[in-house]
């Protein structure tokens, strides 16, 4: 069920985005600086923004879901229970998995940004979507929660997951790496080969690559393994 970008371009004021490529089944990381067009790409990928030219198609994708950076935008329930139900999910199960048990009757507005993001991602990652686009999923989360989200993304064994982020440390194991450079989508290829072509890689990964210690993936565990690896 690949998601195909064919000669896609999108222009808004002075900004122009161009994209060409095929997102195959698996986890994709789209990295790029702030303002490079990651969010715009996320909106286009999930079909919520129509490109100016070109087409985006994924014929076998039945359901796509976009998680926006700010969880407030997704809130349509007054209480936590109502919010979880609005996603068509079981409140008890979700509240327990997001460590918000016993707070179902509370108003969503009393949650901190981090708690709300936790609840929101808990709902999104529990939804059965063929295409899941996560725009800055790690923002407003502490290290512990980032680790939880990485684990949950890694546990997904079907569909396409596109993660648009500028997070440098807490990243899940991914299958493909892409970059947004000057408004253009550039493919680095499949991991682990892609790591050597990843020009926007975090510094600690770049240094490992320069030393010839290419990690098998970009997760902290894989990077740690590469760091501790004995040179042959």
């Amino acid at each position, binding site marked *: 069920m690949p998601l195909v970008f064919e000669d896609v371009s999108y222009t808004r004021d002075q900004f122009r985005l161009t994209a060409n490529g095929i997102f195959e089944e698996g986890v994709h990381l789209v990295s790029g600086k702030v303002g490079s067009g990651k969010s715009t790409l996320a909106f286009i990928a999930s079909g*919520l923004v129509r490109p100016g030219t070109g087409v985006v198609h994924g014929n076998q994708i039945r359901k796509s*879901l*976009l998680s*926006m950076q*700010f969880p*407030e*935008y*997704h*809130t*349509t*329930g*007054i209480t936590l229970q*109502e919010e979880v139900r*609005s*996603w*068509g999910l079981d409140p008890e199960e979700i509240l327990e998995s997001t460590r918000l048990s016993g707070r179902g009757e509370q108003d*969503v*507005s009393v949650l901190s940004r981090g708690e709300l993001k936790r609840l929101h991602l808990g709902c999104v990652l529990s939804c059965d979507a063929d295409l899941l686009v996560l725009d800055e999923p790690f923002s407003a989360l502490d290290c512990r929660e980032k680790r939880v989200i990485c684990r949950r993304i890694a546990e997904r064994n079907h569909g396409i997951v596109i993660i648009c982020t500028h997070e440098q440390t807490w990243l899940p194991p991914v299958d493909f790496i892409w970059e947004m450079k000057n408004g253009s989508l550039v493919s680095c290829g499949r991991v682990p080969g892609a790591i050597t072509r990843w020009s926007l890689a975090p510094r600690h990964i770049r240094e490992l690559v320069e030393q010839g210690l290419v990690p098998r993936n970009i997760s902290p565990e894989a990077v740690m393994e590469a760091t501790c690896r004995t040179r042959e």
Partner: protein
Amino acid sequence: MQDPRIRIFVIIVLSVAAFISLAGAAFAFLYWLCLPGRFRCIRRPAALLFFSMIIVVSVISEYTSGNGFSYFIRMTVILLLALYAYTVYIPGEFFRVSVWLFGKRGFDPGLIAEMSMEALNDLEDDSSNIRIALRQKEVPLGFSTLVPVIGMFVLNQISRAYDQADLLTVRGYTNGGTLCPDFHPGIRDYFSGIVAICILFLAIFPIRDIFILLH
């Protein structure tokens, strides 16, 4: 129009002309048709909402006083001008114009105007994002979703206001400040201003009266 002073002046003058008479509204509409980016402004989501409000008031007015049609034409033209002004606005313009107009006293009103414009932009973004979220959840916008959605609007605005207040405090703002605005008006700007004044003149003194006076 590059010069925001002349643009704001033109919008005010044309709005007054449109409000005064139907002839003024017709000329202001013709002027609006000549503006670059005129159709871009009517695609804004708020345009439909405001237009609907004008229709409702016009219908009520037509049934009660019989002035509904005139009201509809005049207010529609004013709405088009306002939407145009909002669309072509560049952040910082009101601040610069306010300081140019009122000197040091214009600093605070300019700052308030800028913050208000920013809040309007944020509201527009919020409403667009919420519509996306509702569509994704396949939840129709009804009474049950209206309360949390409006709540989200209000809470977001309060949160941003707190952030802005913190930012101003950190930067040492108490009241007033210094700004040296500079403008670069061109021939087109002056021409646009003169045409707007002519339209206001025609709105105040109908063409028929001018010919009577000439006789």
